[in-house]
């Protein structure tokens, strides 16, 4: 005889009643499932959030780009700390050589420094970037209001600037910054545009990404004209020392024609720079490679997580099986009575299997709720980005139901296999 939907609902209702009768015991039974499901969702959300952040950050570097940064070697810093003039980094010669690589569409150089940016009495320490108009395209920089500087302003070394969103909010909380003048060192720049906000919380330095929100972009020629090619930095250490370094370019951004050619181009770049640079005072960052690495890391992370979750769900399932076996023993007489009034073996299996599934599914529901709350709390208190994916909720809930079926089947079959006469006699 097939079970109608109405009857199934009645079976579920009966099962729920029996579980509700022993609230504490049922709660303790499903705790394993609750924590298993909650940890799967929460950990996946945290992992997903972290990888999303990393991916965004890497993508903000441009996946078709190769980035070469000038790096000041630590040994130089020590020996030339006080009076010597340091020389490091990428030069005009490097630029000309790299331009000869056929797969490179264009190279955008940038000169950077950390400076205090002033607007009347308000100031913020920002990254001042002197670059070309193409910078905007290769870095996918959006302009919220105003415009980017153009070729003519570059040629004329105009004192114009585009500010990042964080600079805007701290210097111009209420005013419209377009047309206003900001001061860097002793030079004045007119604001012509505001860059759109790039969203990524908690910048991880490991990806060499720059926080584009705390930046001021000015034409490269203007930088050379106003600041020269010397960078002045506050030195490290207890005593404040100033160090001066001669750096022509801090950064090259190479745009490669095809994604497939990125890796070969990167090794070519490394060869070319290796010829002239005696020390490795540069660093080649391939965002695509970083992206792939991040994905590999995520995969490993997911496998580790999956195994932990599987173990905790199995433990939870064993907990349910254990209690179900105890319940079957406890209700042996009831099973006998039900068999006497006409319940088939299948009816008894249905009854106990339903109870096991109700247990594990309610554990799953509590676990899902907890699993949604935990990442929210993590985001709120630890400031980490979390991302709950619907499929993680769906899968973990389905697994909890599957655990109920798997671990409820044996006790249910045991119950159904009882001899009715002996079950009726059971004390």
């Amino acid at each position, binding site marked *: 005889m097939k079970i109608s939907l109405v009857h199934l609902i*009645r079976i579920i209702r009966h099962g729920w009643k029996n579980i509700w009768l022993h609230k504490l015991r049922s709660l303790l039974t499903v705790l394993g499932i609750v924590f298993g499901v909650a940890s799967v969702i929460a950990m996946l959300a945290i992992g997903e959030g972290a990888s999303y952040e990393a991916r965004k950050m890497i993508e903000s570097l441009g996946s078709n780009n190769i980035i070469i940064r000038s790096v000041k070697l630590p040994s130089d810093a020590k020996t030339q700390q006080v009076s010597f003039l340091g020389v490091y980094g990428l030069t005009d010669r490097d630029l000309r050589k790299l331009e000869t690589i056929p797969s490179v569409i264009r190279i955008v150089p940038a000169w950077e420094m950390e400076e205090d940016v002033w607007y009347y009495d308000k100031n913020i320490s920002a990254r001042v970037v002197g670059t070309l108009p193409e910078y905007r395209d290769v870095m996918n920089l959006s302009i919220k209001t105003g415009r980017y500087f153009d070729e003519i302003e570059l040629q004329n070394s105009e004192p114009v600037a585009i500010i990042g969103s964080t600079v805007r909010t701290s210097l111009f909380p209420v005013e419209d910054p377009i047309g206003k003048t900001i001061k860097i060192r002793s030079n004045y720049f007119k604001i012509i545009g505001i860059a759109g906000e790039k969203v990524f919380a908690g910048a991880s330095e490991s990806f060499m990404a720059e926080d584009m929100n705390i930046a001021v972009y000015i034409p490269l020629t203007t930088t050379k004209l106003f600041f020269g090619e010397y960078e002045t930095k506050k030195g490290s250490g207890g005593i404040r020392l100033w160090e001066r370094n001669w750096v022509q370019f801090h950064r090259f951004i190479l745009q490669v024609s095809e994604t497939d050619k990125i890796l070969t181009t990167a090794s070519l770049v490394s060869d070319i720079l290796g010829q002239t640079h005696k020390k490795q005072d540069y660093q080649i960052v391939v965002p695509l490679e970083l992206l792939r690495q991040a994905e590999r890391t995520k995969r490993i992370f997911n496998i580790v997580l999956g195994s932990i979750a599987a173990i905790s769900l199995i433990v939870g399932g064993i907990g349910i099986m254990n209690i179900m076996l105890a319940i079957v023993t406890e209700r042996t007489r009831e099973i006998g009575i*039900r068999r006497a*009034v006409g*319940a*088939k073996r299948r009816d008894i299996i249905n009854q106990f299997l339903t109870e096991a599934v109700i247990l594990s599914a309610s554990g799953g529901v509590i676990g899902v709720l907890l699993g949604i709350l935990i990442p929210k709390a993590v985001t709120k208190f630890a400031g980490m980005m979390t991302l709950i994916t619907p499929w993680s909720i769906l899968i973990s809930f389905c697994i909890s139901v599957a655990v109920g079926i798997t671990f409820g089947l044996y006790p249910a079959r045991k119950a159904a296999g009882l001899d009715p006469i002996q079950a*009726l006699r059971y004390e």
Partner: protein
Amino acid sequence: MRKDLEEELREQAHPNRLKEYPLQESEDLCQMNQNNNQIIRFEEITKVYHLGRIDIPVLNGVSCEIKKAEHVAIMGPSGSGKTTMLNIIGCLDKASSGRYFFENRDISSFDDDALSEVRSRKIGFIFQSYNLIPQLTVLENIEMPLFYQQVDEIKTREKAIELARMVGLEDRIRHRPAELSGGQQQRVAIARALMNDPVLILADEPTGNLDSVSGKEIMKLLCDLNERGTTLIVVTHDVNVAKYSRRILKMLDGRISNED
């Protein structure tokens, strides 16, 4: 499960549904007419329990017939096999050998599901220790047999209330069995046994745990049912209980030793 039985049972449950009655062999039909008012026939039923390597014979070839609407008492000392016989009659147990006809149908070879179906549709049980389910209310206990027939919930409830009224417990339907006296619990058990409109009620020491007043009430209820046409088989030690029945089967060492 045997197809023909299932169909027949279904037909009885839903009389308005037209079903082709399976054709019987003519010999079979003759026998049917002959034994039309016979509900139970035992032919050389034996039962042997296997306890490890030892075989314990409990029934040693029991043959008997019980007619519809009869009231039979089975008596005998402990270990004489009367409860085993009742269990076999009630399809809770299967005979080791011999043939058992229930309503002219040989059900000795029925499988577990088919026997459950017979219990569900045809038989009501009453036990010495009431055997109510403690976590369910009186009403839910009474309703239980129809639960497994997947009968509509509202109809089930109406019938259960009606039966509770019949046994005089309509004001106790929300109580749990533990809140009732022994006599009341046994009346709940009787109501439960009547839920599926059984043709046969089997009572195993129904008054064994009751005082004499409650015992008399219970027996009166059972006798009333019997008078309305339900076959009643009572297993008892008690001569006073056996007195109610018109026929007494006395058992000794797994055989019917005497019949009054």
